[in-house]
């Protein structure tokens, strides 16, 4: 699968993911866009959006049933996801506290983090960006989300229940 095909796959999956959540409505998808540098009627009203002086591969603007607008961050990788990639998303997510921060790859995580993914002491702070909120990492292919690839482990059941 080439990069463009994978990008389409990610975009289609995330659209379905949001559509399947009765609580959410997708307002707009920003691709590789620095939200702090654009003018948008909804983003302009969101204090967190102005903090997003960085580029994620996808940022989704969604509206919750309560009427509140939230952001979803997604970085996608045709390669395996390593520590640097998690650290990068951790910074973005700590700044803007998105509804979800997702790292999606064809291959899942890199073997370099095998040792630490099952060690909650290491993996919890590495993935956690807010109270009860963690970055979620997983492999996605034409068969959908590979459930065994979902990290961190303590978020797996929660995330599986979402789709």
């Amino acid at each position, binding site marked *: 699968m080439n990069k463009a095909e994978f990008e389409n796959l990610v975009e289609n999956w995330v659209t379905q993911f949001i559509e399947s959540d009765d609580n959410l409505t997708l307002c707009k998808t920003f691709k590789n866009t620095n939200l702090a540098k654009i003018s948008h009627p909804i983003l302009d009203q969101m204090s967190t959006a102005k903090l997003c002086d960085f580029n994620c591969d996808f940022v989704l603007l969604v509206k919750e049933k309560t009427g509140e607008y939230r952001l979803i961050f997604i970085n996608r990788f045709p390669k395996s996801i390593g520590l640097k990639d*998690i650290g990068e998303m951790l910074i973005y997510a700590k700044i803007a506290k998105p509804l979800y921060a997702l790292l999606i790859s064809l291959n899942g995580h890199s*073997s370099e983090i095998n040792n630490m993914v*099952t060690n*909650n002491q290491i993996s919890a702070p590495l993935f956690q960006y807010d109270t009860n909120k963690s970055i979620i990492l997983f492999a996605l292919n034409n068969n959908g989300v590979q459930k065994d690839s979902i990290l961190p482990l303590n978020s797996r059941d929660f995330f599986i229940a979402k789709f």
Partner: protein
Amino acid sequence: MKINTSIAYLVGLITGKGYIEENNQISIEFPFVNKYIEGIAHCPVCGYLATKPSGSDLLKCKNLTCINSKVAKLDSNLKKIYDQPEAFNKSIRNEIVPFLESGIDFSFNFVSNSTCTFLTLKLDSILHTYLKELFDPAISFTSTSIPSEMWNIQEDEKIELINGLLDSIGFANAGGWIPRDGLNGHGRMRIYFQVINRNYKLPVSIDNYLRGNFNLPIQTIDWGHPNIRDGNLADYLQGKKSAYGREHQVKFYPEYYQQFKFRISSKQALFQELLQHNLDVGFSDKEDWFPNAVKEIPVNKIKATHPMEQNPMLDSKVRTHVDALWQVNLKMGCSFVKSLQDQAANKELFEITGISNDILEPQTKIDLFRKISNQKKLDILENRLSTKKTVQKSKGKELEIDTYPVLVKWLEQYIYQQTGEDSFSFDTSSQTLFHFFSTLKDDVGSFSESYIDLENLSIRPDIVGFTRQNKDFYFIESKITSLGLKELGQIIGYCYVANPKEALLVTTKEISSPLIKAVARNREIIKYGDGKEVKFGKLNMSKAQIDLVEL
């Protein structure tokens, strides 16, 4: 603890690729390098082995009298292809876990990616404590061996222990054949256990166990020792000083191992293919390295002295010169070679030369071996010098790698200023952590623990510094672009996992305003460990100086 076949199998898995963790957890890594692995191809005309010549997509028959041996024209579809991630996941879920559950109570988790599946078991505290004590002081496969208690278990349990080793570090690979002629064909297939280089104990432990309990032959042990892997210094002279440090491989012929099985289906299918090939071709020689390989070492087999043979990353028992695999086995505790040594007239003479009988002036013979090794090294180096060409450095724009030597020197001075301690600093682009420690002349001492921690975590920032006296280490991540949030994110991941004493993010350019603003608003983003913060610096290359910047 009453052992059963499930526990014995788990002991095999841990010995091969296990981590004994806290909280009653055990994790097992099941690695597979490639998504697909190919089986064997046989020529449709004569049935001989067909292989792919270099650079060709088609196959050629190995039978020189066959019409298909002239040019590569056989379709590679003759080979079966196995999807490893699928096979591993299904087998672990449907075979391995149920088998473990038949004798052990546990809950479990899978984590998988494109190169391995990681199985984590949560055991009851009694079994976890038993396993911890069984392997003590080892807590991972980097230093495990088959526990001595496992020599006293039942036959079916011993078989399951080996099955566990096969599933974790056993590999059946169609490319692992050796050129041998059989009754009906060519090429003899081998299976192997692959052991991480740091663990010198396990190959001998496996050899002793298979030989001692099952009387099984081992074709060879391919040691990742400088004299064995790089006997003519070829890798060393190409600058690949740690190339010898690839995994050890314990190789055996499948026809003698039919009582064992892989539970991972792709491995088992390949095992069956390789086995059937050997049975069809018909080989009668066991080719056991013991005792056949243990004999006087001929002069032409004496290896050149290798500059890495004393390096501190080798197990201290083999931090020496060797000329043959059995010498490593002897030093690592092979009871079988030891029995031959005990019968030898002169034990030191036997150990160095392989000579068992009494000879006149044994010390002269020993000295001759050493002299020949040293002379071979000198000859190789002299030959190298006469053929070495001057390589001109190409001029170009500044690269990140150009900053590394400056940063290495700066970090050593910085650590000294901060702590009053000498340090070892190096850049990970020019060498791995393993290589760095391999080239140290000093005893790695206390900081080897830090090295092992980092090596286990596969942490690789641009520059790493270690203090000599304690376990403290320092990271520098270097950039030749301005520093932004992305760059901060790249070092913070390492910091969360490894918790260095200090971490510096350094640039030859500027610190971007988004980063400055973000830190001003939320200082939490640069924090790690127990309140430590990533530091920022601007590198002045001409002055070889870093100006630390307060954000």
